[in-house]
């Protein structure tokens, strides 16, 4: 049992290391970083002194070694722009992104899971069709379009809520709603499918045949079994949430990591891009690891099967 | 006559890799020798998992051997290039147990029957009409209504599908045919029809046949000689009558006992003890054998003649007189 968790953790750490290495070299494919970061008209001396100052005159492997040993001690380099440690960016912006993501994620579950359950239980009825139509629409609506539509409706037209910024709770409502609504469509569809699959199983028919009240059959037998795939899906959807975060933060000028990433890319601020990429990759790989571990706890069969395959 | 097929000391095992510790090794075929003459049918019998299907694939070069040689129509299979091997396949055919699986679900069966002529251009069926004529001929040979040629596999019955697979195998006029349980997926009445067809084909084509089956009654109808396999080894071999009527190996007798008898009051004898692990030494059948003695646990029995072409791999094979009783 511990073996399973250790193997999963080791795998996650290796994946993270490979990802970090991959991004390190990807971001250095273009050797003329100075030219990009300064500007096209910079003199050769300016570029040379820039490269010396930031260590780009060293070989790639040396740079990698310096970076990775630094990163392990919490030193992720310095921003080109204001010479502050890149890690400070994360420390500053992380709480904002967590605030938005957690609110959005909670909303996503609160809307998506009950909608999916209702559609599955009322399978084939008007309720089911309405929920599924809404889900199909939500699935097809880009988060930036939904965000701007909400912004127009509530901030411009009704003037109920602030359009951009992050200073009060009211500022959180629109971005979190955008985040939650876009994500909940996929959750609802998946929950419905998982629930329908479980409801078709022989043990549900057996429970019904034994005369158990319908609500008890659903709550006691169906929901716990449908929970496993749904939890997995929630975990794996963290990857998409990262994408949402970048876009939603941009739409609402929410000062989180996603917005920081976009502006760092625009400024060619290498160290900041690098550290943000590491943070996002850690988020997703960590979430996947969490799902794996939860899975092992919820379903002992997975654990033993994983053990046999090594 | 030169044999169409000769196998010498074939070995093949399967490994499953493990991250830690040694690989799991499962021996499937262990030191098999056999020969098939033109126009002859060799039956290979044994329970499921004894390695008879693996042997069939080794004989056709569809699976590489670990050691040992297969010589088919004068070619040593391991030595051929991939292109030469593919070319040779026109002369050696395999018929699977499951005809539905062996057919592409998305093409009319007629096209599939004629496909080997397109694969093997060197056979010279260059024109559409030549191929159509040859297709007509094999359809007649397997007694399949030409109307059915336009149908898709799932629209045919099990017997019709097996006729299609046979027709496809026969269209290139092979000299060696390996039939892997060709009738076991069919209803009994259809089995009889297909067996009748196979008998006719055997007589007419002059090809060497290897007939793999777990069913002794079916083998008796078609095979001239029989080889009994147990755990990858041939434990008894000889003419069909000799092996099936006067079996010398305890395993063959067990198998024969497993065939339901129609004599009233005659009890069907089933396997006495099934044991999974391979014995470290000695006869591999010993753990299941009712007649096993101390020597069986230590000494390895070699396939040796027990009268004429009949040979058996048992240290204490009973004399012919004991069995005739």
């Amino acid at each position, binding site marked *: 049992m511990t073996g399973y968790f250790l193997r999963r953790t080791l795998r996650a750490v290796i994946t993270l290391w490979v990802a970090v290495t991959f991004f390190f070299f990807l971001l250095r494919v273009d050797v003329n970083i100075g030219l990009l970061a300064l500007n096209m008209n910079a003199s050769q001396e300016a570029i040379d002194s820039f490269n010396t100052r930031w260590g780009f005159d060293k070989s790639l492997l040396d740079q990698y070694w310096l970076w990775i040993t630094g990163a392990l001690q919490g030193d992720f380099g310095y921003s080109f722009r204001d010479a502050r440690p890149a890690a400070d960016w994360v420390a500053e912006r992380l709480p904002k992104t967590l605030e938005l993501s957690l609110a959005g994620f909670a909303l996503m579950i609160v809307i998506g899971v009950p909608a999916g359950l209702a559609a599955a239980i009322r399978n084939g009825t008007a309720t089911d069709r309405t929920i599924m139509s809404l889900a199909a629409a939500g699935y097809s609506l880009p988060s930036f379009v939904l965000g701007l539509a909400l912004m*127009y409706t509530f901030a411009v037209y009704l003037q109920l809520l602030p359009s951009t910024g992050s200073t009060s709770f009211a500022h959180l409502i629109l971005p979190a709603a955008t985040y939650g609504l876009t994500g909940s469509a996929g959750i609802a569809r998946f929950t419905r499918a998982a629930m329908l699959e479980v409801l078709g199983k022989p043990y549900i028919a057996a429970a019904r045949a034994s005369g158990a009240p319908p609500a008890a059959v659903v709550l006691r037998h169906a929901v716990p079994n449908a929970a496993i795939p749904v939890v997995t899906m929630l975990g794996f959807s963290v990857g998409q949430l990262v994408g949402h975060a970048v876009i939603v933060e941009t739409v609402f000028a929410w000062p989180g990591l996603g917005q920081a990433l976009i502006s760092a890319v625009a400024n060619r601020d290498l160290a900041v891009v690098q550290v943000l990429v590491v943070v996002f990759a850690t988020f997703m790989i960590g979430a996947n690891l969490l799902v794996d571990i939860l899975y092992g706890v919820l379903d002992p069969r997975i654990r033993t099967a994983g053990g046999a395959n090594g | 006559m030169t044999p169409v097929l000769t196998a010498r000391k074939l070995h093949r095992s399967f490994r499953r890799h493990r991250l830690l510790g040694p690989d799991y090794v499962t021996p499937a075929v262990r030191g098999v020798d056999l020969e098939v003459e033109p126009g002859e049918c060799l039956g290979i019998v044994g329970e499921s998992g004894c390695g008879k299907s693996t042997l069939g694939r080794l004989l056709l070069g569809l699976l590489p051997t670990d050691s040992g040689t297969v010589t088919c129509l004068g070619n040593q299979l391991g030595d051929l290039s991939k292109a030469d091997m593919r070319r*040779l396949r026109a002369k050696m055919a395999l018929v699977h147990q499951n005809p539905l699986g062996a057919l592409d679900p998305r093409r009319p069966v007629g096209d599939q029957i004629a496909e080997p002529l397109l694969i093997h251009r060197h056979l010279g069926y260059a024109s559409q009409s030549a191929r159509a004529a040859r297709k007509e001929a094999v359809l007649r040979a397997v007694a399949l209504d030409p109307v059915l040629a336009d149908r898709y596999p799932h629209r045919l019955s099990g017997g019709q599908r097996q006729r299609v697979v046979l027709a496809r195998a026969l269209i290139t006029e092979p000299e060696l045919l390996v039939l892997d349980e060709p009738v076991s997926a069919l209803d009994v009445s259809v089995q009889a029809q297909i067996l009748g067809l196979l008998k006719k084909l055997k007589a007419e084509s002059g090809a060497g046949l290897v007939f793999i089956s777990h069913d002794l009654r079916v083998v008796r109808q078609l095979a001239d000689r029989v080889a009994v396999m147990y755990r990858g080894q041939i434990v008894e071999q000889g003419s069909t009558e000799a092996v099936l009527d006067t079996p010398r190996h305890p395993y063959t007798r067990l198998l024969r006992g497993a065939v339901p008898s129609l004599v009233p009051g005659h009890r069907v004898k089933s396997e006495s003890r099934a044991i999974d692990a391979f014995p470290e030494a000695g006869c591999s059948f010993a753990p299941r054998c009712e007649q096993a003695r101390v020597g069986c646990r230590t000494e390895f029995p070699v396939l040796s003649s027990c009268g004429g072409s009949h040979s058996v791999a048992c240290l204490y094979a009973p004399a012919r007189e004991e069995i005739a009783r």
Partner: protein
Amino acid sequence: MVEVTTVRKAAGTPWSLRLAAGWLILVLILALVGPAFAPYGVNEQDFAARFAPPVLAGGTWAHPFGTDQIGRDLFSRLINAIRISLLLALLGTLIGMVIGSVLGMIAAHFRGWIEDVIMALVDFQAALPFIIFAIAALAVFEAGFWTFLLILGIAGWERYARLVRALVLQAQNDGYADALDSLGAHPVRIYLWHILPNIFGAVSVQMTINFPETILLETGLSFLGIGIQPPHTSLGLLVSDGRPYIFQAIWLVAFPGAAIFLTTLSVSLLGDRARDRADILTRKD
């Protein structure tokens, strides 16, 4: 059960699917021939008519969908953006399908270490947030049409690879590929003539799932300003351009936003239908 199916048949194709198909046909026609008939050039400015409202909001037929802050005709820009967005999504989906299918086939054909390497790549890509990869890659490489297209194509290849590998293994397991091998057929013949036609249905269903996601990715990245660059335009870039003027000219966001939404929705609806059909077909066998 029997009654249910007959009732459905009697009802015919639902109106939502008819509308979806109709919209896609319209969009395809616009993308193919629209730009030739667009009343104005993409970057043609009409300073006299800045922020002209669309006809529906009291504008004139000179600019049926209104104009932007420098007087560019939104209708003309929209038609061009639809062409670029559709082209990127279609080609991106195709590139992903081809890369993924080929690698999936290679993995299933050769097995062993080749399969291990390919599947490790698949797992690696699936373990990373793709949009972050896209942003990082677009930060490094010159943001041109082809780079962007390639990045869109790489998104999702891993799902085709997984699917095709599983389908080919399934085909080998079914026996017909094996049977053809034993007849002496060349592997190329087996793959192109037999396996490919058999797995095409499942792969095209995957494409209907992938296509809307590619549109969303393309428009999303263009919205962030790191996708398609001016003077070209795409639906996402139009939304991005219109965003600062949401207070005075909502149409600049509303029309391109609606175009993205309707297109992805239509493909999703038709794709769901195709998948249901495919399920029914396989269940019958």
